[in-house]
């Protein structure tokens, strides 16, 4: 800015010719790194993810089994022996929060992975597959907007409740079914977004140019159009992670999440409410963990949006 005011001639920019051309992505990356709040969120999330993995697979960090009961220490506050205190059955809250943390991360990322695949496929098909397909897709998304999200997730989850997927075991299939129930409702936003982007890209000059030069439809879609839709899609997907974590917590909170003894953060909050007047530490830690997770993903999403869409603000 200052330089531009000083002397608007080419010589005034010694680095102008030397500087290598920066693409959209490295530009966006630079903007993201400069966003302190988003970077703090990213670092914190990385630390949390490492902690969640270590806390579920190493004894040093986990310290106690999440389901092990010790009736000598019931309803205790935080101490050196039990960092987050113990619950009404003498279970260690630290190990239980770590278990729930891993579930929340799995659900958040798993749901958005599915949403990304369905959203790109359905949105792309609607935009490129002709009018009839587009109309059908749009009526389906209209319908999804008319149906209250959380109610649909609750209904779907209860349809899946108690059933297992073939070949992956009870625990894994219950986790997957929770993820499916949420993803099945959450894909609509991304699909609409992809469709809108694709429809406007289809009319742009560079796509016309590629077509005029004889590029195959496959190449046009994957080389020219898809990369240009990714920016907003990434932002939407990252914003979707806290929503998925929230949806799982709600399911667990009303008691149709993962079957016990597996406890996700929502289950812990639900159980903790019953003891809020006796020992509020039981509910404080899982609630704070959900809050931190959702905040970090939201701040990261904010940073990504500003980085990928500098005109947006």
């Amino acid at each position, binding site marked *: 800015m200052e330089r531009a005011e000083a002397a608007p001639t080419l010589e005034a920019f010694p680095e102008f010719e030397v500087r290598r051309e920066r693409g959209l992505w490295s530009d966006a990356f630079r903007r993201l790194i400069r966003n302190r709040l988003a970077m703090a969120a990213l670092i914190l999330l990385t630390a949390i993810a490492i902690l969640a993995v270590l806390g579920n697979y190493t004894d040093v960090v986990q310290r106690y089994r999440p389901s092990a009961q010790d009736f000598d220490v019931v309803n205790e506050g935080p101490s050196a022996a039990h960092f987050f205190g113990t619950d009404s059955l003498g279970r260690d809250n630290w190990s239980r929060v770590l278990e729930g943390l891993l579930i929340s991360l799995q659900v958040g990322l798993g749901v958005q992975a599915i949403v990304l695949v369905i959203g790109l496929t359905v949105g792309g098909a609607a935009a490129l597959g002709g009018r009839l397909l587009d109309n059908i897709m749009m009526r389906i998304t209209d*319908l999804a907007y008319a149906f*209250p999200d959380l*109610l649909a997730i609750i209904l779907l989850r209860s*349809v899946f*409740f108690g059933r297992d997927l073939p070949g992956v075991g009870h625990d894994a299939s219950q986790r997957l079914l929770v993820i499916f129930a949420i993803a099945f409702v959450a894909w609509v936003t991304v699909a609409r977004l992809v469709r809108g982007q694709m429809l406007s890209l289809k009319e742009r000059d560079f796509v016309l140019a590629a077509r005029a030069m004889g590029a195959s439809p496959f190449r046009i879609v994957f080389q020219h159009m898809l990369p240009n839709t990714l920016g907003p899609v990434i932002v939407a997907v990252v914003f979707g992670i806290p929503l998925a974590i929230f949806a799982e917590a*709600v399911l667990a909170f009303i008691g*149709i999440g993962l079957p016990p003894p597996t406890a996700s953060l929502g289950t812990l909050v639900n159980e903790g409410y019953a003891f*809020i007047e006796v020992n509020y530490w039981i*509910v404080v830690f899982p609630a704070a963990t*959900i809050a931190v997770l959702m905040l970090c993903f939201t701040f990261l999403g904010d940073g990504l949006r500003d980085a990928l869409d500098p005109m947006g603000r």
Partner: protein
Amino acid sequence: MTGYIIRRTLWIIPVMWAVATITFFLMHAVPGGPFDRERELPPAVMQNLNRKYNLDKPLHEQYGLFFWDLAHGDLGLSFRSANQPVTDLIRDGWKVTAQLGVVAFLYAVVFGMTLGAIAALNQNKMGDYLGVFFATAGAAMPSFIIAVFLIIIFSVKLGWFDVLGWEFGNYRKMVIPVVSLGTLPAAYIARITRASMLEVLRQDYIRTARAKGLAEYVVVLRHTMKNALVPILTVAGPIFAFLITGSFIVERIFAIPGVGRRFVDAVFVRDYGMIMGIVLFYAAIIAVANLVVDVLYAAVDPRIRYR
């Protein structure tokens, strides 16, 4: 305009039909039936119950019968709550849910707009940073997390409010549920208010208003706020719908006997009649809220014309 309203109203009918159809088949796909108990009922009793509620008929006949009754304004009986009509049960719950929802809506609008306006008028100053931080943080705070901290601080520690219950007009029972439910939409409204006020503050007519020496509060309230209202109005419909359909969490925490809690209970015991009734009821509220907002939108901004 009238034609637009009529067409939009008629469009609600196919949407409701589709919602009902999906719900019907989803809830019949839930494992178990409404009369499964820990202790099994005698076969003869089961048979009679199933006959009374048409559950012995093939699924497509049940589907037809449901819509036949619905067309006559009858949502049927609750399968669990001692044969009470679903419409009565919803009406009982709706009174409480509507009180909670409307108060939370007012809180969200007043608090959110004030915060957004303060942030916009102090752009890039302390008030702005605080406002933006609250708006971003609050938008990621689900009701049952806020409620945890509010209950611990204000009920358990300070004893200002009650831990459970709802009573319209009794602040001890109203403040925490309303704040828990309304803070997320308040943060959302604050964000939109800030953005749209910043937009309006850049307009020429604001400069004109200042130039002719109007008092600052007149500039802010009459010229800025009024014009910044339009984008806020567009989200008012979805937010109202969110408050009504999302209140089941708060109703559960505070043991408030609203519609949402009845829905959760109904899913647990597979009370088909109640599930269907409440889903349709919610879908209707969403549709009507969106319609009202679209019509208001045209009334507020004469540049918008519906065809």
